[in-house]
C-alpha cells in the first residue's frame, strides 16, 4: 500500500481538466514517535472544488488538517502550492498563502464582540484609533449579505456554539482565503444553521475558493462535495468523484482494514447483573437502558460526542442524572458522588489521561496509590512501606516501563501512562470497571496487553463497560455492543451479530 498511487482512475480524469492544482501533496507523511499518524499520501486539490475527506476517528484526518495549516511539521514528503514547493512550517505561512481552517471547536475570543473577532489582527485604524463603528457596520453588512441573522456588536461568547461557527466561517471568508478547511463544522449546528453554512460554502466555491470538507455525516458529503477522499488507519485509501460513488462503497473503504490479530477475547459465563439502567437520562444522553453482568464486556460504540462518555460519567456520579432509574446488584441506587460510586465498586478509567486520569507532574507511585490512600492510611499518615509495596507490585504486575515508582508520569510513553490509569483502579479493586477509550494513542503491543488485562478482570468476576470509537476494538471484545448516536442508545447487538457496515451506518445515521 505504502508508496503506491492510491487515486482511482476517475479521480485522475477529473483533475486533468483543471489547470495547475492549487495544492498537491506528494508522499506527505507524519510520525509521532512510534505512531504512524499519516502514511505517505499523494493527493491533489483542484482549484475551486469541494473536496470531502472521510474516515473513522483516528484515521488521520486531523493530522492532515494540522499539516495543511502549518500547526505541525511533516516528517517527510512534499507540498506544492500552485506548483511551487512550500514548507508550510508555521500557521502564519499557511495564512499568508490563504489557507484557513474552521475547526469543530471555535478558536476565537469569546470576550470580544463579533465584529472585533471578524477583524482581529486586521483592524481598521484611523489616526491610531480603531474605527469601531466602521468595523461593526462592515461586519454587519457581511453577515447580512451572507444571510446570517446575527448581530455584529454583541460579545461572541453570548452566541451559541453553532452561531460562533458561522462567525468563524464568515471571518475566514473575508480574509482573502483561497483554501478553506472545514473540520466537522456541523457537529454543533442546528439544521437552519447548517443550511446557512452550506449556502456560504457554495458561494465561496463560486468565487474560486477550494474547500476541504471533513465530516462524519455522509449525507453532507454527497450534498456538497465534488470529490471525496477516504482515510483509514493513517492511509489514504482512495479518492472518488462523488457522483460516481455511493454510501456503501465509502463505508466499506472506511473500514476495510487488515484486522490485526491482537484482540484477545475469552468467553466467560455471564454472572449476576451488576448494574442496570432504566431510561436513564442526563446531560448529553437520554433514555439509556442497559445492563452489565459479571464476566461480560458491554461495548459502547459511536462517534465522538455521541453521549457515551457523558453516560458513564453519570454512572460514576460525576454528573447528576435527570431522569430514569439506576440499579446496582438489583437494588435501586442514587449515585450522587464519585466516592459513592467507588464505594459501591465502580471504577472509571476516563477518556483523557492527561486531563482526567493522571496527575501528570507527580510520580508513578503516587498516581497508582491515589485512590487507595484512605485505605492504607494509618493514624492519619501514609506508611512509606505500604505506599512502596503497592506501587512496586502494580509496576511489576503491569510491566510498566519506568525507571521506578519515583519517576514522573509525564516521562512515560502513552501506553505506559494508560497502564498507570488502569493500574490505579486494579489497586483499588472494583466489581464494575468502566474503560473510556483505553487504547487511544497506545502502541499495538500495549494494546494487546490491555486486552489480556480485561480478560483477567472478567475471570475474577468483574464486569466491564468498554467505550471505543475504534469499531474493531469493541466489535471483537464486547459480548454485547451498544451503538450510540446523538445521545441515544439506538441499537444493541450480541457478539458478532451485526456486520461492521451495519454498525457504522447506525452510528453515522445513514
Amino acid at each position: 500500500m505504502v508508496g503506491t498511487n492510491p487515486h482511482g482512475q476517475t479521480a485522475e480524469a477529473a483533475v486533468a481538466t483543471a489547470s495547475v492544482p492549487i495544492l498537491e501533496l506528494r508522499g506527505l507523511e507524519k510520525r509521532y514517535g512510534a505512531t504512524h499518524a499519516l502514511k505517505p499520501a499523494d493527493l491533489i486539490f483542484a482549484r475551486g472544488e469541494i473536496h470531502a475527506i472521510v474516515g473513522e476517528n483516528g484515521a488521520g484526518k486531523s493530522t492532515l488538517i494540522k499539516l495543511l495549516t502549518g500547526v505541525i511539521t511533516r516528517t517527510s514528503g512534499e507540498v506544492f502550492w500552485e506548483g511551487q514547493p512550500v514548507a508550510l512550517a508555521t500557521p502564519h505561512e499557511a495564512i499568508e498563502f490563504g489557507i484557513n481552517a474552521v475547526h469543530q471547536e471555535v478558536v476565537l475570543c469569546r470576550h470580544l464582540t463579533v465584529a472585533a473577532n471578524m477583524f482581529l489582527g486586521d483592524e481598521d485604524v484611523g489616526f491610531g484609533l480603531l474605527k469601531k463603528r466602521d468595523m461593526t457596520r462592515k461586519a454587519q453588512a457581511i453577515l447580512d449579505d451572507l444571510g446570517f441573522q446575527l448581530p455584529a456588536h454583541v460579545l461572541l461568547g453570548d452566541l451559541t456554539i453553532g452561531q460562533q461557527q458561522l462567525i468563524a466561517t464568515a471571518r475566514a471568508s473575508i480574509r482573502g482565503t483561497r483554501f478553506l478547511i472545514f473540520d466537522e463544522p456541523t457537529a454543533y449546528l442546528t439544521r437552519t444553521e447548517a443550511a446557512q453554512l452550506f449556502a456560504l460554502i457554495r458561494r465561496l466555491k463560486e468565487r474560486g475558493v477550494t474547500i476541504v470538507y471533513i465530516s462524519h455525516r455522509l449525507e453532507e458529503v454527497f450534498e456538497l462535495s465534488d470529490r471525496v477522499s477516504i482515510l483509514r488507519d493513517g492511509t489514504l485509501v482512495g479518492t472518488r468523484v462523488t457522483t460516481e460513488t455511493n454510501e456503501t462503497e465509502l463505508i466499506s473503504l472506511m473500514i476495510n482494514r487488515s484486522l490485526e490479530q491482537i484482540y484477545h477475547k475469552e468467553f466467560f459465563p455471564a454472572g449476576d447483573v451488576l448494574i442496570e439502567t432504566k431510561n436513564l437520562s442526563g446531560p448529553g444522553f437520554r433514555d439509556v437502558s442497559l445492563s452489565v453482568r459479571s464476566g461480560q464486556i458491554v461495548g459502547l460504540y459511536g462517534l465522538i460526542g455521541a453521549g457515551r462518555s457523558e453516560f458513564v460519567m453519570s454512572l460514576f456520579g460525576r454528573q447528576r442524572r435527570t431522569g430514569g432509574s439506576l440499579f446496582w446488584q438489583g437494588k435501586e441506587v442514587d449515585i450522587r458522588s464519585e466516592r459513592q460510586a467507588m464505594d459501591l465498586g465502580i471504577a472509571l478509567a476516563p477518556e483523557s489521561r492527561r486531563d482526567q486520569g493522571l496527575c501528570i507532574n507527580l510520580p508513578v507511585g503516587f498516581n497508582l496509590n491515589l485512590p487507595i490512600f484512605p485505605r492504607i492510611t494509618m493514624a492519619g499518615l501514609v506508611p512509606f512501606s505500604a505506599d512502596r509495596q503497592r506501587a512496586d507490585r502494580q509496576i511489576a504486575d503491569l510491566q510498566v516501563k519506568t525507571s521506578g515508582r519515583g519517576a514522573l508520569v509525564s516521562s512515560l510513553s502513552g501506553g505506559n501512562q494508560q497502564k498507570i490509569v488502569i493500574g490505579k483502579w486494579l489497586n483499588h479493586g472494583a466489581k464494575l470497571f468502566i474503560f473510556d477509550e483505553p487504547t487511544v494513542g497506545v502502541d499495538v503491543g500495549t494494546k494487546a496487553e490491555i486486552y489480556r488485562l480485561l480478560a483477567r478482570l472478567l475471570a475474577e468476576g468483574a464486569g466491564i463497560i468498554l467505550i471505543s470509537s475504534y469499531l474493531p476494538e469493541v466489535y471483537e471484545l464486547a459480548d454485547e455492543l451498544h451503538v450510540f448516536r446523538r445521545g441515544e442508545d439506538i441499537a444493541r447487538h450480541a457478539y458478532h451479530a451485526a456486520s461492521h457496515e451495519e454498525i457504522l451506518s447506525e452510528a453515522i445515521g445513514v
Partner: protein
Amino acid sequence: MSTDNKTAAAIQKSSANWLFGLTLIGLLLAMCIVLSLTTKSFLSETNIMNLMRQGSMIAILAVGETFVIITTGIDLSVGAVVGFCTVIAAWLLTHDFSIMTTVIITLGVGVAIGMFHGFGIVQMGLPPFIITLATLTSLRGLGLLITNGATINIVNDTFTEFSRNDFFGLPNLFWMVILVGIPAYIFLHHSRYGRYIFAVGSNMEAARLSGVNVKLTVYLAYTLSSTCAAFVGLLLAARIGVGNAMQADGWELQAIASSVIGGTSLFGAVGSVHGPLIGAFILATINNGANLLNVNSFWQRIITGLLIILIVYFDQLRRRRG
C-alpha cells in the same frame, strides 16, 4: 426566533455591564452620603482634597495593573517599583539633575523594569507571578543598597510643592489621574493594541492564529504597568519629600484590589479603565471614613478584605447569570 431571543439577551447583558459601573459609582456616592451625615469633617474642603490625594496614587497604579490582569497576568512588583523610583528621583534631584531630566530618567527606569518583566515572561517562559515577585524583593534590596538603608531628603521646593498644590480647585495629584486615565482609556478601548490585550487574555491561541503579535502585547502590558508605577513613584517622592526604598509597602495588593473591585477579572479578558479608578477611590473612602469614625486602623484592613470578597462574589454571580 431563538436567534432573536439570544440577541435580546446579549444586548441586555451589555447594558448590565454599564449598570455594574453605575453600581460602583452608586456605592461610592452612598458611602460619601453616609459619611457626610455621620461625621462633621467628611465634607470639609481639607478632607475631600486629602481623600483625592490619597486615592490618586493607588488609582494610577490600578490602571497599570489592570492592563496586566486583562492578559491573565499579575504584576506584584508595582509597590516596590514605586519605592525604588522615589529613591531614583531623590538621588537624581540631590545630584542637581533638573526636574525634567529626573522625570524622564525615572520613567525610563519604569519602562526598563517592565521590559525586563516582559523578557522574563516571553523569552524565559517564567510565570508572571514569579518574575514580578522576584523583582519586588530585588528592587527593595537595590533601593536600600543605593541609599545604604537611609532616606534621601529632597530639597527642591518646586518638586515637592507640586503634590501639595491645586489647579482649578482640584489637587494636582488628582489631575494626574485624569492625565493618565484619559490616554489609558483611549488606548485600552479604542486602539488596536488595547484590543489585543483583551484578545491575548481571552484566547492566546486564537490571537496568535489571527496574526496578533502576542509577545509584543505582553511586553506592552507589563511596560505600561511599570511605567505607571514609576510615575506614581515620582508623585510619592514629591508628596513626602524623601526617597526611601521601603515606601509604598503593600501597594501592589491595594492596586490589585482596586482593579478587581472595579470589575477586572483575574481570569483575564474582562476589565476597563474607569472601573479600577472608581475602585481605588472606594478603597480610599473606606480608609478615610474609618479614620473619621475613629475605627481602629486594624479593623480597616479587615473591612477592606471583607469588602473585596463581597464585591467580587457579587460580580461573579452577575457573570454566571449571564
